[in-house]
């Protein structure tokens, strides 16, 4: 079981709810992913619209936990205010804290992130910070009160997988007891399996499922990959070698030359 802020989760696949073709596809994708946690957001809604109310009704009906994000926030103040607004609407202390520092890569502003995390943790939020694989930033986020880290695999929506394997492996090795969930950039199930094989505790997927030709089938494929990768990690993978090593015993081999 994955434990985050005292909550036990059987599923290590967290799913984003954006960019699906329809609410029906989203619903089926969540089921196929067997996700227990889905990310949600807050956006402006005019009095004449009902989209947000309808969306929230669907999510509540699924019985999943929600992890509200602060997507689109570029400053500490925006992120902190959005977190407060989300806590009220979604009735949860959880917040996926995003403070964006660069628009082309959607790279987190790690300085703003650590400051916002410090404020929100002190106010009783349970913060899931969207961060990089930087060890120093990770240390600061933990010192701020975060008990989970969400390092990026690669830029949001890019589908490029794990950009910095060495850095991510170092992060895992440095913080063996901290739940680490890869957030962003995974494109195909093998990326998720690779993250789990590296020892990460979970992955958060959105675009790779929502924008697939068949999102429901892709959600199922990611679920299998996450389970396979986690099982492989527990099974103890062999070390990679530079040269061949015969798998068939050489002792007793016939001399037929």
């Amino acid at each position, binding site marked *: 079981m994955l434990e985050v802020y005292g909550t036990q989760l059987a599923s290590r696949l967290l799913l*984003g*709810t*954006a*960019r*699906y073709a329809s609410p029906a596809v*989203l619903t089926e994708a969540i089921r196929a992913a067997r996700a227990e946690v889905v*990310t*949600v*957001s*807050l*956006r*402006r*809604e*005019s*009095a*004449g*619209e009902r*989209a*947000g*109310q309808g*969306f*929230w009704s669907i*999510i509540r009906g699924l019985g999943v936990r929600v992890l*509200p*994000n602060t*997507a689109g926030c570029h400053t500490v*103040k925006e992120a902190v*205010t959005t977190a*407060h*607004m*989300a806590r*009220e*609407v*979604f009735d949860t202390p959880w917040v996926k804290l995003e403070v964006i520092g660069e628009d082309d890569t959607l790279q987190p502003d790690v300085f703003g992130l650590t400051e916002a995390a410090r404020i929100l943790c002190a106010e009783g939020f349970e913060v899931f910070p969207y961060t990089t694989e930087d060890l120093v930033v990770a240390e600061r986020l933990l010192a701020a009160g975060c008990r989970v880290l969400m390092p990026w695999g690669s830029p*949001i*929506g890019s589908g490029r997988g794990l950009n910095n394997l060495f850095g991510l492996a170092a992060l895992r090795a440095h913080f063996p007891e901290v739940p680490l969930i890869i957030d962003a950039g995974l494109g195909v199930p093998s990326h998720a399996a690779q993250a789990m094989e590296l020892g990460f505790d979970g992955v*958060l997927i*959105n*675009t790779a499922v929502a924008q697939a030709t068949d999102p429901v089938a892709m959600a199922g494929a990611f679920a299998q990959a996450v389970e396979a990768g986690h099982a492989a990690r527990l099974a103890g993978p062999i070390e990679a070698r530079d040269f061949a090593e015969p798998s068939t015993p050489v002792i007793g081999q016939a001399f037929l030359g």
Partner: protein
Amino acid sequence: MRILVNGDWRETRSRVLAAMLEELGYGGRIVSTAVNGEFVAAEARVGTALTEGDRIEVLAPMQGG
């Protein structure tokens, strides 16, 4: 008075945030509010006075990644 609601200028007769939300059709809706960049909790809307030119954000649950 004129206030800015979700980026659009609106005319309102209301003097407090709660009344303004009712007037503009948000009554009974699950929304969260901020005035001039500051979060205003639901229970504080009745006591939150509005003044000309205030920037109001009315946010609803939405899909997110």
